[in-house]
């Protein structure tokens, strides 16, 4: 853990709404993308000279493309329902991190250039010219939104700040002021196939290592196949699953599930990434280009099903947009959902008694579950409303004997973001990440104290990395975080079926 150059918030029994402190996070801004990160995404290499006109033109373009954006910018009545709902406001006290404060940064410029009243009486309606200061403020505060959509659950008009923040980032990119973290990563996906930049030989080496490990630990030859033509399932998973802990323990679990159920499967070196950061920067074109790799891999390998691993926003892109972005998927088996989540696969196998779990294998743990924002509020699993809350918990309960939920105001669709979502999981935003984790860590500490919880399971690569990094700031161990399929991996009884 690095020595922080900021104050770490004090944990409370219940997260308190802080008194407003104007401008406390105005210094926070991530590194700006370099030309080599901008150009592969077809954005200007650096801030263009006519940024003002270009930004307004782009805003006009987006207002025409997304009717929702205009509705969101028009319909806020300043009721205040959202003000205490953002984890970044609760953790930083900065009023521009209130959802309405964040929306207003774009709204005031929208009013100035796109509404009659704003054009003629700007001061009466809070309209403001787009200046360089405003542009820099956008860059700072639209990179303090993890696009988790918690505020939209509580907004009586359903205004979605995530969409406003995506639009703002798209405008910033279009004038040449992109964010290094997201754009470097998207460029890597285009060049190599995944966020990490793992080339095929490294993937092969890593997967062979996993096969050795499982054979050594469980005495069973579980395969982790790559580019195997004719496999039934293409598994698309975040590249962090190959690389980091506890992510890789989840990947080991997926392989055991497929092995035990007798389902042939493969990973792809071409589509070796489930994540799609095109979503975070609000770019339909880049999101589509990343998604197309999955279609290409599925066709090339001749698979019948596409299954996604544990990744939050990837499941949003997959569940909500994949068919429009990269469909139609009429070449896949219509008897299965397109696409399917690994938890749906495992859940179904448990229900049908096609795999056997021994939960006593996890008796050294008392487990709680962190609902990931994108899965909770932008997707579903299974065929019933709320399946995205039920299915992960069902699978965990089948894999462990000791499960405890956190406070209801912090779970299901009221879940708090881990603090690192939406393209903010970068070291240059560590202060924001640590402070934004406060509401979740408060709730976690309560179940630790009240119920002796030892581990928190997650189903998103970003959540897992974020907690691993920030929990030590609050005196908690980084190894508290586990993958849901890590629990399955520990509990699954190998060699009893087929």
């Amino acid at each position, binding site marked *: 853990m690095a020595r922080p150059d900021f104050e770490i918030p004090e944990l409370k029994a219940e997260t308190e709404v802080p008194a407003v402190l104007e401008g406390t996070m105005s210094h926070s801004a991530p590194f700006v993308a370099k030309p080599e990160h901008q150009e592969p995404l077809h954005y200007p290499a650096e801030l263009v000279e006519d940024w003002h006109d270009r930004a307004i033109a782009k805003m006009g373009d987006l207002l025409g493309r997304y009717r929702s954006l205009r509705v969101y910018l028009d319909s806020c009545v300043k009721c205040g329902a959202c003000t205490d709902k953002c984890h970044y406001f609760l953790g930083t006290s900065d009023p521009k991190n209130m959802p309405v404060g964040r929306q207003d940064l774009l709204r005031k410029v929208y009013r100035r250039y796109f509404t009659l009243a704003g054009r003629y009486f700007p001061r009466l309606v809070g309209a403001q010219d787009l200046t360089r200061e405003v542009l820099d403020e956008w860059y700072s505060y639209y990179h303090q939104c993890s696009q988790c959509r918690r505020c939209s659950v509580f907004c009586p008009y359903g205004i979605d700040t995530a969409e406003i923040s995506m639009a703002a980032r798209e405008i910033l990119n279009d004038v040449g002021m992109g964010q290094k973290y997201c754009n470097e*990563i998207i460029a890597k996906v285009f060049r190599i196939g995944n966020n990490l*930049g793992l*080339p095929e030989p490294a993937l092969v080496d890593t997967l062979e*290592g996993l096969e050795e*490990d499982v054979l050594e630990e469980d005495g069973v030859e579980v395969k982790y196949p790559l580019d195997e033509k004719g496999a039934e399932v293409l598994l698309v998973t975040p590249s962090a699953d*190959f690389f980091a802990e506890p992510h*890789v323990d989840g990947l080991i679990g997926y392989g055991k599930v497929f092995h035990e159920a007798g389902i042939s499967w493969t990973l792809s070196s071409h589509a070796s990434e489930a994540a799609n950061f095109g979503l975070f920067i609000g770019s339909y074109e880049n999101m589509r280009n990343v998604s197309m790799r999955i279609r290409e891999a599925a066709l090339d390998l001749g698979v019948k099903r596409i299954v996604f691993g544990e990744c939050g926003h990837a499941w949003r892109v997959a569940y909500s947009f994949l068919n429009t972005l990269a469909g139609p998927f009429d070449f896949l088996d219509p008897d299965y959902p397109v696409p399917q989540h690994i938890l749906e696969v495992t859940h179904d196998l448990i229900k049908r008694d096609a795999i056997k779990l021994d939960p006593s294998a996890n008796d050294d743990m008392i487990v709680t579950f962190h609902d990931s924002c994108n899965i909770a509020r932008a997707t579903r699993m299974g065929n019933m409303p709320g399946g995205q809350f039920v299915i992960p918990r069902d699978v965990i309960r089948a894999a462990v004997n000791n499960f405890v939920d956190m406070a209801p105001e912090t779970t299901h669709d009221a879940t708090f973001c881990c603090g690192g979502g939406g393209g903010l999981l970068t070291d240059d935003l560590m202060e924001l990440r640590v402070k934004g984790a406060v509401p979740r860590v408060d709730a976690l500490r309560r179940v630790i104290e009240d119920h002796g919880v030892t581990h928190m399971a997650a189903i998103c690569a*970003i959540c897992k990395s974020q907690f691993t990094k920030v929990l030590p700031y609050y005196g908690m161990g*980084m190894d508290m975080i586990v993958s849901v399929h890590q629990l399955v991996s520990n509990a699954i009884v190998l060699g009893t079926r087929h």
Partner: protein
Amino acid sequence: MSIEVNGKSLEVDEEGYLANLSDWEPGVADVMSKDDDLELTNDHWEIINFLREYYEEYQIAPAVRVLTKAVGKKLGKDKGNSKYLYELFPYGPGKQACRYAGLPKPTGCV
């Protein structure tokens, strides 16, 4: 931005990673670790050297599990885990050790 190593000025990015992998020499790790108030021992060098060898073959830093396994094989099973690596490199083996070894920073959801 740049750092001074044995009288030479080497370019680094805003996070302190070498801009050019080929600029690396052992002095780079010495200078960077001094900045972090960390004294490099043989144990650190085992890791740094492994990272460089792996990178040369695969053009990427090794996955955490690949690294811990290699360390376990070479230095004994009790050292083949992330806890040992974090003791050596408190800022995280993936990032701090990669920086000392002159490798680019691992990107993505890690």
